């Protein structure tokens, strides 16, 4: 079965119905295992027990970035192939990406308080993620403001692609900016130097977050497809 057969909404509904429960269950298991392992590791000698926030923070940030990438890819496919399923997928990813970004910001802030003594520090990574959150919000606002379904999807697709081109530049500029204004910080690229004991829970949590994202994404795509079908049927009955 090729990927293009999946692009047929009917086929997609059948296949996703089979996979969805398994992905959701896998997400629950890995997240539970990750959390248990995360609490089992010994506290860090420098950061103490607050280091455990890393298991919530780093995967959230990572998932938020991945969501934007997937959204941009789906947008490009929707724009070039004019495929409604790709449009739906891109649109469905945006609120999820925004939530994961917000989660990354909140956990980063919670981590910052004991580390720096302030809820917010203009650290390079946190600043990038704040800008990423605004990119997501702009995308969601644009999609909501344009009533025509097709037009809305294509306008959002252009914005997502422009954003994807710009995102690495924003990241770079923010990194440059932090070196101009202050020294190194704890949440530097790649996180703090990670002791091997932390790697397992971090890996499990990253996998869990990713699976969770995919499960929620599938649910949102399926909901949107069902909604559209319902709308079409209602309109057909009215005429």
């Amino acid at each position: 079965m090729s990927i293009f057969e999946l692009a047929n909404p009917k086929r997609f509904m059948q296949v996703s119905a089979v996979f969805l429960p398994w992905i959701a269950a896998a997400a629950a298991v890995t997240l539970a295992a990750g959390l248990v392992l995360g609490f089992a590791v010994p506290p860090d000698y420098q950061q103490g027990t607050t280091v455990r926030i890393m298991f919530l923070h780093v995967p959230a940030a990572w998932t938020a970035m991945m969501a934007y990438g997937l959204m941009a890819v789906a947008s490009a496919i929707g724009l070039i192939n004019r495929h409604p399923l790709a449009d739906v997928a891109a649109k469905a990813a945006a609120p999820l990406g925004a939530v994961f970004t917000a989660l990354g910001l909140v956990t980063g802030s919670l981590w910052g308080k004991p580390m720096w003594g302030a809820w917010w520090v203009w650290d390079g990574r946190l600043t990038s993620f704040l800008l990423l959150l605004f990119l997501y919000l702009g995308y969601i606002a644009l999609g909501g403001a344009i009533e025509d379904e097709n037009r809305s999807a294509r306008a959002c697709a252009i914005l997502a692609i422009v954003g994807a081109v710009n995102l690495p530049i924003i990241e770079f500029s923010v990194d440059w900016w932090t070196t101009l204004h202050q020294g190194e910080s704890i949440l530097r690229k790649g996180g703090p130097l990670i002791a091997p004991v932390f790697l397992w829970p971090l890996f499990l949590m990253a996998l869990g977050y990713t699976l969770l994202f995919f499960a929620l994404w599938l649910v949102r795509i399926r909901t949107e497809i069902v909604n559209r079908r319902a709308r079409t049927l209602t309109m057909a009955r009215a005429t």
Partner: protein
Amino acid sequence: MTFSLDVEDLSCIRGQRALFRGLRFSVDAGRAVSLQGANGAGKTSLLRLLAGFLMPASGTIRLRTDGGDIEHAEDRGKFVGWFGHQDAVKPQLAVREQLAFFARLYGSGRNPDEAMRTFGLLPLAELPGQYLSAGQKRRLALARLQLCARPLWLLDEPLAALDTAGKKLVAQTIVAHCACGGIVVAATHEALGVACETLLLGDG
């Protein structure tokens, strides 16, 4: 010179609704078509399809010219003289400025003053658009249409907001354009006042 418009199997779907299917007609150089139909029958949509703004759900729109057949929407647009139901008059610009701008934008080489004389706008030449009446704005739009010097005219309700003299002017302009080998497709509720074929949209 050969010039004609051929439409084959044209279908238009807006939202979830099919406005028309399998539409087929052809117009030769020097002919005018009056496009009729109830509100919502798709008159404006058909004009926007012909102009290349909209993409048809199926079918082809072909222009036969000396330089070969032209199907691609954006290439087709370069032959279109557009007269929409909006006047596209800028309140801040004087009548002459507006016309001179479009003559230069379209590179037609026609003289704005002559067009203003033809359409009785010469006394208003220096007046900013905001002071024009609805009828005067329509005449400005007509003058612009002539200035742009395009062979395929697409007119959306050209008679709206015009008095009897204005309607006569529209008819004369259409006749003159056809006499030069141009094509006119006009969506309208009332009789155009010129010899033309009629295309009825909807039901039929």
